[in-house]
């Protein structure tokens, strides 16, 4: 068992899979010689060569399209899109081709590939380096959408993503790369070495897809969240002194509905939290699913804590980011009933 931050854990996952399976290849902008802007692919080209870890032009549609052509031929490409904000030029290839190849060929062929992409705010990246576009992809049938919240899950989920025969869009909350950020920018940064999920096995293991995790058991209210907001919610719950059950969704689609439903049937209250904007966001789907499944168990209207319905504002990073106080306010609201 080693101490790893999320960057090292993701790197370890790809190192293991490149070694274990000769059909695994990596392509993306700056991923080879340079090692990636966040260092996630550092050293992999040196170790596995230019045929396995490829530098691609800044052409996201081309990168994803080429990865599809590789994947339908039995390779297992990992395409890196350098920031989730850069994924839109590849949107057509992801939605019109990747997501539906299996369906439109009635299973004749499919593309087992992973698109890794760093997402989320909290790094003063402004409008085009801070977005959380997961809800755009959860709406597309055929895609598996994953967002880990810690190094242990990041490695195990990435290995599962590479191994599954379905296409995966794998969002990496970049604010969590180096530590479990709890939403308070004024506190000194905390490294992963102080967190239990920073303990990561050196070798192969996997964390199953489509399985949510209860990261804090409780009885008073269910908090459904993922990514950076897992840590923000933990801190908010701790501060409010409420016995909340916190669920880290981990795989957004296909969703582990059972874990959510069982929890809300127990607590009768639910708060949903994500960094992404609110209207038509993934939280709306979570809310609707829980309402449909748990209506007669609910004691209070479901609350959503989200980013505002605006582009990510440079000047108002911490007003936009749904920090602890907004989570606390939602918790108080559901506890009134």
């Amino acid at each position: 068992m080693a101490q790893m931050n999320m960057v090292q854990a993701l790197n370890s996952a790809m190192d293991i899979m490149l070694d274990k399976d000769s059909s695994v290849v990596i392509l993306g902008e700056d991923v080879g010689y340079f090692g990636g802007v966040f260092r996630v692919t550092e050293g992999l080209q040196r170790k596995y060569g230019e045929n396995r870890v490829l530098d691609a032009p800044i052409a996201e549609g081309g990168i994803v399209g080429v990865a599809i052509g590789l994947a339908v031929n039995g390779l297992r490409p990992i395409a890196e899109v350098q920031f989730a904000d850069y994924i839109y030029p590849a949107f057509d290839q992801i939605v019109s081709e990747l997501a539906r190849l299996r369906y439109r060929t009635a299973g004749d062929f499919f593309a087992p590939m992973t698109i890794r992409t760093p997402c989320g705010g909290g790094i003063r990246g402004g409008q085009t380096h801070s977005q959380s576009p997961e809800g755009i992809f959860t709406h597309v049938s055929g895609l598996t959408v994953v967002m880990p919240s810690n190094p242990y899950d990041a490695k195990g989920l990435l290995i599962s993503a590479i191994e599954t025969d379905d296409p995966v869009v794998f969002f990496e909350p970049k604010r969590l790369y180096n530590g479990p950020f709890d939403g308070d920018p004024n506190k000194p940064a905390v490294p992963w070495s102080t967190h239990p999920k920073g303990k990561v096995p050196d070798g192969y293991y996997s964390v199953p897809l489509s399985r949510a995790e209860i990261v804090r058991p409780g009885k008073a209210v269910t908090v459904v969240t993922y990514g950076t907001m897992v840590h923000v919610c933990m801190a908010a719950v701790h501060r409010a002194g409420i016995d909340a059950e916190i669920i880290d969704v981990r795989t957004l689609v296909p969703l582990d509905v059972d874990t959510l439903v069982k929890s809300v049937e127990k607590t009768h209250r639910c708060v949903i939290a994500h960094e992404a904007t609110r209207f038509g966001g993934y939280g709306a789907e979570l809310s609707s699913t829980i309402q449909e499944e748990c209506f007669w168990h609910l004691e209070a209207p479901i609350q959503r804590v989200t980013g505002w319905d605006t582009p990510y504002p440079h000047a108002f990073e911490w007003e936009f980011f749904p920090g602890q106080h907004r989570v606390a306010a939602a918790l108080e609201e559901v506890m009134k009933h």
Partner: protein
Amino acid sequence: MARIHKTVTGDGFLAKQPTNKTLLDIHRRMVRIRHFEERAGKLMEDGKIPGALHLYVGQEAVAAGVMVHLTAEDQITSTHRGHGHLIAKGGDFDRMYAELFGRSTGYCKGKGGSMHISNMDLGMLGANGIVGGGPPIAMGAAFANKFRKSKHVAVAFFGDGASNEGSFHEAANMASLYKLPAIFVCENNGYGEYTAQANHQAVVDVADRAAGYGMPGVIVDGMDAVAVYEAAGEAIARARKGQGPTLLECKTYRFYDHVGVRGMGLNYRTDDEVKKWMKRDPIKLFEARLAEQKVLSKKQAEAVHAEVLAEIEAAVAFAEQSPMPDVASLLDDVYSTAG
């Protein structure tokens, strides 16, 4: 600037004379496409095929002249006008009509339809309802060949319209950068949907765009099957030798509308223009050549047409009699495991 492939129509001389067997093979592929499409158009008009069809009639020399060089392991990506590519790649009429009819016996069990018909065994990665969707995927297929050190190639078919899409340019850059065993075949039929080429791009020759990516660009008469055969042969041989991609522009014409079966009386092109191109009907041109070279007499050609027509009638009957897919299959094949 792009190199113009010397057309050989009427000069009776070929640098690399295809064998009689190859000429007859090309001829049969063209005839198969023509009659399949004519019949499909009628079936659509009669309301038997749901949805709209983009017919390949007029462009047969391109599909046949390229595909005769390929094996099933050489993969292609196609376009919304994709029936011709699949037929030339060895597509089976039964399963093709069944797919157009939306039957369970179709290539995609009815889930693809005309614009998304595909078959991995034949190396046909799909017709595509998205203009420009195919080229990046074809480059991935070419890359897989390079990765595995095989001699197979991948061919991306696309139109003059798609050559304005970013996807084409991204694919062209990557193909040349990685020296992929690939061929870009632009079927320039003069129109991007309903807009004449002069109104949608400033270049006259799409092949000129090859220069921007450091690959050869070749212009060829797309109504002349032998010219296409020759130029495609060179490009494919080059790719197999590991010398990288080529952009081959075939100047051609669709005899029918963008969608459907009207040819004349359209408000975006003149009947005179259509008639001019129809005088150079690729099948008639080719049959005249074959007759002159005593490879195929008029009578023998008629026999080929009759055989193909009989096969088509049987295939249409097969499709009509095939069952609809079970509605329970609606939810199948979204993910690898049932939801």
